[in-house]
């Protein structure tokens, strides 16, 4: 009987399910979910003001979500290597295997985030509050960050056989995007302060998903008036819907490009 290729999409969904339930069984999803649940309740208990809690939450999300996405992605990839190799022996498209696994991990992480934060906020009366849009934006951005950083870490793990090296690069990537990038960004702004910098600084924000998410959330908060203070370019960007649209398109690119690279690399890699 000739070997039969499985339908790629069906196979992908099946692998996605395996990874998803695997994470559920290993209880990491629950831990992550409970962490956000606790965080949400504590925040709301402490200041009881939804819109203020949203701001505090933003600070947590733009630092923590990428970190957890990165660590989880790398860990899962290395851990399930044997299973992956088993799957590779089957007549399944390689991109289906890797993208299925990726979506399983990223999906489970995003779900923990959305439910973990969503439940306390809903209980505290989110639907009656006008913070609902800010909050949804926060969750959407958080989900995007999970997708982006899990994809990036899968890429790193795929390119590095050595676990220690892979872990090191992944953490370094997080450190770079979360902290060092902003430092370099700031230095370049100060060094070139004689030049018109608005377009440059907007562009520089686009090239870092963490900065991008931060500005996207700030855009929707009142505080955006502070940013618009600087000049006409900022004012146009932060004062109109152009900023939101461009930021979302860029987040989309940030998610899509690592996934494409993942499936491209996976096809060519010699296991």
């Amino acid at each position: 009987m000739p070997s039969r290729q499985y339908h790629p999409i069906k196979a992908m969904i099946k692998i996605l399910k395996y990874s998803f339930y695997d994470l559920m069984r290993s209880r990491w999803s629950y831990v992550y979910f409970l962490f956000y649940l606790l965080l949400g309740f504590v925040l709301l208990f402490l200041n009881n003001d939804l819109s203020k809690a949203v701001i505090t939450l933003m600070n947590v999300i733009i630092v923590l979500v990428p970190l957890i996405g990165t660590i989880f992605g790398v860990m899962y990839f290395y851990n399930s290597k044997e299973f992956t190799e088993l799957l590779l022996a089957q007549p399944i498209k390689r991109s289906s295997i890797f993208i299925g696994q990726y979506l399983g991990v990223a999906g489970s992480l995003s779900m923990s985030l959305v439910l973990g934060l969503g439940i306390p906020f809903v209980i505290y009366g989110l639907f009656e509050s006008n913070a609902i849009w800010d909050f949804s934006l926060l969750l959407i951005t958080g989900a995007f960050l999970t997708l982006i950083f899990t994809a990036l870490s899968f890429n790193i793990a795929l390119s590095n056989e050595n676990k220690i090296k892979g872990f090191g690069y992944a953490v370094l990537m997080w450190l770079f995007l979360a902290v060092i990038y902003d430092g370099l960004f700031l230095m370049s702004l100060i060094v070139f302060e004689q030049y018109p910098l608005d377009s440059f600084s907007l562009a520089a924000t686009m090239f870092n998903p963490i900065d991008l998410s931060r500005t996207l959330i700030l855009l929707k908060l009142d505080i955006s008036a502070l940013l618009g203070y600087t000049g006409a370019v900022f004012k146009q960007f932060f004062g109109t819907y152009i900023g939101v649209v461009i930021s979302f398109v860029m987040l989309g690119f940030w998610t899509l490009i690592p996934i494409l690279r993942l499936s491209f690399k996976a096809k060519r890699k010699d296991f």
Partner: protein
Amino acid sequence: MRTLLLLFCALPFLGNSLKANTIIVCASCEVTSIKEGVRIASDFDTLLIKKGTYKEYNIRIDKPLTLLGENNPVIDGQEKGEIITIVSDNVTLDGLVIVNVGTSYTADYAAVRVVKSADFLIQNLVLEKLFFGIYLEKSNNGKIYANKIVGDAVDEYNSGNGIQLWYSKNIVVEENTVQQVRDGIYLEFSDNIGIINNISSNNLRYGLHFMFSNDDLYEGNTFENNGAGVAVMFSKKIIMRNNTFKRNWGTASFGLLLKEINDADISGNTFEENTIGINIEGSNRINYNDNNFIKNGWAIKVRGACYTNAFIHNNFMYNSFDIAYNSNLNDNIFKENYWSNYTGYDLDKNGFGDIPYRPVKLFSYIVNRTPETIILLRSLFMDIIDFSEKVSPVFTPDDLVDSHPLMRPVVRETKIVKK
């Protein structure tokens, strides 16, 4: 000033008791127009204007009269020009609705203009569809009380001010509401003015604007959602007390702008949700006491050339930046304020934090130098360098500290007992 006030309040009654002539103006009366009424009236008469619409403009009041509206009669200027011009002392306007002032690019048409007159009282007017509202020109000792001015200004270049004082002295502007004009209240070369309990909101430019006016007081006013709050420029000895500056929120907005102001007293005010609470430039010897700065972008932005100012007993709560400072020199005093960003402790329980508070953050210093860096607002990196600067200050003024920060907010009207 009190006695003067009493005097001019009493004057119309004095006139009435002498002559007690009342001329009634209405559509079916003997006198059907206000102009006609003014023409036939003798000094100190009262024109009682009954309910109705009077299509008149250029009404010139050249003798001491009282124009009293009954049931809000409307004077419609049909946008042809100025409506009422007062050129005599002792004129009272009361209870009129004045609409449709003409707009002009060469003349400042007003609903009510007072020219070189004294002892007037303008009260309970409602002004709508106006260019300029109440315009005082070299007029003294008057009172503008409880008027409602609602404009429909869209652009600065073709709109006028609600209440404008030009070369006028000893005027009280009280309990007025001014909305949607260019400047709510505008003072130029006007001294000894009291601006009390007014509400000025949704104006295109400033809620209140001072130019070259000295020894004035404004107290208990609310300035909300104006293009740029209140601007006080080139004036001396101004007292600003218990006012509320709220939601002047926009890219170039501020609650209060001080430019070239000396010897002023700013106390008991509340600055809430303004892009910049107070923007200070070239202002010296000013006392800032017992003010609340709540949720502003910048609570105070010091632009330079500001010396010997004292900030004592203020509350700085939840501002993105407490103070922005653009130089390394500091000659201003910050003492016994409450800072919500303060993280120190009070071991000896005397109500003051044991370690000094530095209100200028490194980030605020950097933003002042390179405004574009504001894009890094709330990023992790900024928190880290702010922290390191807090531990060992390098860039921010060394002596700009509050050495006795309060542990709890100042509650208004209760003075802290000093040890």
